């Protein structure tokens, strides 16, 4: 096992899939000669040439649409958004074309495309560049939405996403790129639609994805010192949602807190909460709770930026509420 960064894991996934299948290509802003705004495509231009690593103009709607068209006729594009914030100008392509063409063409066209790039709040990039879009995309039938929290998950899931015959929204944790994890040197795949228990515990289930998994893991450590054993379930895939793993855990612990860095209203955690209460009604000892960012655009000031996002202490407090300890 090698210890590599989340960034390197993504790079390896794309490199391996491009070696494996010559229909796979990458397109996006600065993905080639600049090696990617976040250096995720480092060295790929050199290896695979301009034919397969294409620098696009600053026109997300355009290159997302070109990618969808290419996918419809047999290629396997990886469309990189510099960040998911910029996907909003391309959301019509993603929602109305990528997600729907298979169904609207009566199965004549698959759209085997991956839209990827960093998402979630970063550090001091203010309201327009620091937000979470998974709830937008997870809302749409026809899309798959993947949000890995570790380098291991990132590599295995991206490779699966590239091989998937459906459009996959692959949202990387912007603040996770430098995080490292053990990754096998041999090839492996992780199925889309399978949650992962990142920590076992008997007292409460914390449900999170991407960066918030680590906030939960840190909170679990704090709580363990007080004798509270948290189980942390990393959804990894939001759509399709592996609710069975979540429900099994909640049935065991009797309590659930969902932690997401997005906004509270209609956030994806609300869907999880709904399904948990539906499936685990007779097992719940406390209302299913959520910890989210505050219902405000992200402030620029560092102190406020921290303040609006879920912190370890917020998770600890929610856990204690659910355990009736406070």
């Amino acid at each position, binding site marked *: 096992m090698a210890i590599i960064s989340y960034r390197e894991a993504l790079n390896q996934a794309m490199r391996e899939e491009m070696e494996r299948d010559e229909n796979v290509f990458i397109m996006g802003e600065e993905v080639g000669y600049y090696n990617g705004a976040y250096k995720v495509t480092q060295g790929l231009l050199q290896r695979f040439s301009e034919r397969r690593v294409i620098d696009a103009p600053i026109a997300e709607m355009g290159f997302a649409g070109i990618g969808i068209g290419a996918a419809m006729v047999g290629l396997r594009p990886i469309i990189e958004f510099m960040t998911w914030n910029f996907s909003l100008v391309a959301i019509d392509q993603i929602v109305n074309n990528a997600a729907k063409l298979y169904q609207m063409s009566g199965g004549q066209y698959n759209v085997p495309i991956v839209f990827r790039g960093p998402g979630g709040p970063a550090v001091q990039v203010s309201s327009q560049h620091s937000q979470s879009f998974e709830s937008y995309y997870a809302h749409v039938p026809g899309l798959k939405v993947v949000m890995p929290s570790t380098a291991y998950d990132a590599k295995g899931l991206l490779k699966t996403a590239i091989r998937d015959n459906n459009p996959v929204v692959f949202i990387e944790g912007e603040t996770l790129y430098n995080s490292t994890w053990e990754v096998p040197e041999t090839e492996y795949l992780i199925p889309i639609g399978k949650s992962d228990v990142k920590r076992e515990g008997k007292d409460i289930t914390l449900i999170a994805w991407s960066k918030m998994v680590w906030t939960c893991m840190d909170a679990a450590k704090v709580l363990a010192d007080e004798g509270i054993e948290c189980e942390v379930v990393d959804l990894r895939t939001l759509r399709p949602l592996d609710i069975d793993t979540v429900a099994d855990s909640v049935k065991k612990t*009797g309590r659930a807190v969902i932690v997401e860095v997005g906004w509270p209203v209609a956030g994806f955690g609300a869907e999880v909460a709904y399904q948990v209460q539906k499936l685990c*009604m*007779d*097992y*719940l*000892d*406390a209302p299913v709770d959520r910890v989210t960012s505050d219902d405000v655009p992200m402030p620029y000031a560092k102190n406020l930026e921290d303040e609006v996002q879920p912190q370890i202490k917020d998770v600890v407090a929610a856990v204690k*509420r659910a355990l*009736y300890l*406070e």
Partner: protein
Amino acid sequence: MAQIIGLPKLSPTMEEGVLVRWTKKEGDKVSPGDLIAEVETDKANMDFNIEDEGVLLKFLVKEGDTVKLGAPVMILGKAGEDISELTAQASSVDAAPAPSPAPKPERSAPTTKPPPIAAKDGKPASQPIQKPAAVTAPPTEKPASARPAPKSEGARVLASPLAKSMAIELGIDLRNVTGTGPGGRIVERDVKAASEDGQELGADRAQAADRKPERDDDDVDAKTTQAIAIRTPRQPPDPDTEYTDVTASNMRKRIAVRLTEAKRDIPHFYLQRQVDAAPLLAFRGRLNELLGDRGKVSVNDLVIKAAALALRRVPDCNAAWVGEAIRKFHQVHIGVAVAIEDGLVTPVIRNADQKGIGSIAAEVRDLAERAKHKGLKSHEITGSTFTISNLGMFGIERFTAILNPPEAGILAVGAVMDAPVIDLEHGTVVAGKRMTVSMSCDHRVIDGALGAKWLQAFAELIEKPELLAL
């Protein structure tokens, strides 16, 4: 933010307590865990430790007052805080639900209705019983803390879905469980506590009975005090008969409720057997000789050990009826009825089957001694799986005992008597020693043959007492 602190549940079956003594003064600063008062519960004097931090701004009850579970006892907050609103709130909680139960002069002669608690001369024989903080939980900012909020009569039981599932599984009546969640919600830990406290079963039934609406009874006392004993119809006495009504202590009331329940609801039957006590006396004599001044073993200590071992041999008698199931206990915990002033308690010898006779003897002596001073802790008087009541020391030849719920068996032990015994070998009558034991059984759990099997095992252990050492 100041808050009202209610009387917490200090013993598993308590419904009210007498505030014996404040150990802090108004104005004292306290931190979680500090002892602030001693409270006499139905079982023992218990420590009331505060769970919050702050300054004791005001005591709402006096020493000697009887306080219902959850009723306001004090206001806790920051020094100098304005608490006038809370004080008003607390007194309205206290007073609102009912008129004062103080005795009315015209009621000084008892009627068929429950009499007010008063001596014949019209003086209150005790503090008036305070109203519970029913209807509303103690109004505090943090209802989630461990202050219990008693449920009002007929009100919907608030319980988490998990608590409900568990209650069904364990056969626990949620109406009798005190919720410690927000707004008095019964949560998992409350059901677990109720279940772990096997004693709850009996108490629960008592409380359930308590809650039955009594429309024909407009006397407030009857609705709010533990009613079974008090409610028992009494004949109006001959007007010439003089009498004094002595207010029942908490313990007395609890005994009244529980024993009435047990005798009424459990299908008792009784098995009696005479055992040859001569070998037991000889064995005891030898043990005491060996012990010298390092202790003393009584007949009862040996009976405890024998009963415990008999339960191991016939484990089906170490059980309880829990609604839909027979609960078989895995440990043998022997309750030993101990008479104390004004009542009795049943301290528990845990794992008596595994303890040596000497350590049982020492433990019984210690528990009995402390029981006399009400010095037993809650865990020392709960959790027994079988009980022994011995009146041999009073010369009682034989008697039958009322079961101690939820246990399925209790053994009543009579005195060792001199008796003429037939010596089979020589065909003569000789002087012997005999002891009669009576086993009361819960027929839902123990059938006649099973009880007989247990008594047989017990008799063998008593008649061959060396077995007790094995």
